[in-house]
């Protein structure tokens, strides 16, 4: 599983990254967490609001900091 955090690196992006890392750890699954910080690349996803979360190339959230539990629900599907 490929998880990407889309955002230029503000505190909200960092918090979302931390929550995603915690979610992956708790679920004990194999997942690669990457960061997309380039605005051009972020907009290629159609994202206009950050932070955003993409799972296997699909944006599942934008403009909010999902909690660890919310991320766990999404990546457990």
């Amino acid at each position, binding site marked *: 599983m490929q998880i990407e955090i889309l955002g230029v690196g503000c505190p909200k992006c960092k918090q979302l990254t931390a929550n995603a890392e915690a979610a992956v750890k708790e679920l004990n699954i194999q997942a690669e967490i990457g960061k997309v910080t380039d605005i051009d690349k972020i907009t290629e996803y159609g*994202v*206009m609001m950050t*932070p955003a979360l993409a799972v296997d190339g699909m944006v599942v959230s934008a403009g909010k900091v999902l909690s660890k539990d919310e991320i766990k629900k999404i990546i457990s599907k």
Partner: protein
Amino acid sequence: MGECMCQEVGVLIFPCSGGSDVGELSDRVARKMAKCGQAKMFCLAGIGAYVTGMIESAKAANKIIAIDGCQVLCSKKILEHAGFSPISFNLKDLGFEKGKTQVNDENIERAATKISGGKVEEIANRNSGGCCGN
């Protein structure tokens, strides 16, 4: 770190931007309102194509406005199909007839005033300093 994109999205506006005179008027009105800071213009095509990044970004909006040129209401229907409940404006209801409307500064101003003077007023006042007058 580059320019942050995490500020509040506020009001998003989606014109139908159709091929007719009133479709063009919807587009020009939306651009004027965006320029004036009353709303942010967004891409209806991206919603229709179900680009997940655009769908999720639109979910972060406080309010979503659809401006349609005619009673077919394409913008409203596309947004509803994607799960949104837009505030809908039909230019026909505002006095602009398909095939009989000139797309000029006067009509753009009239339509924008009717929209921002109606249901949008409270939202616009809350989210911007009002119209720039251009």
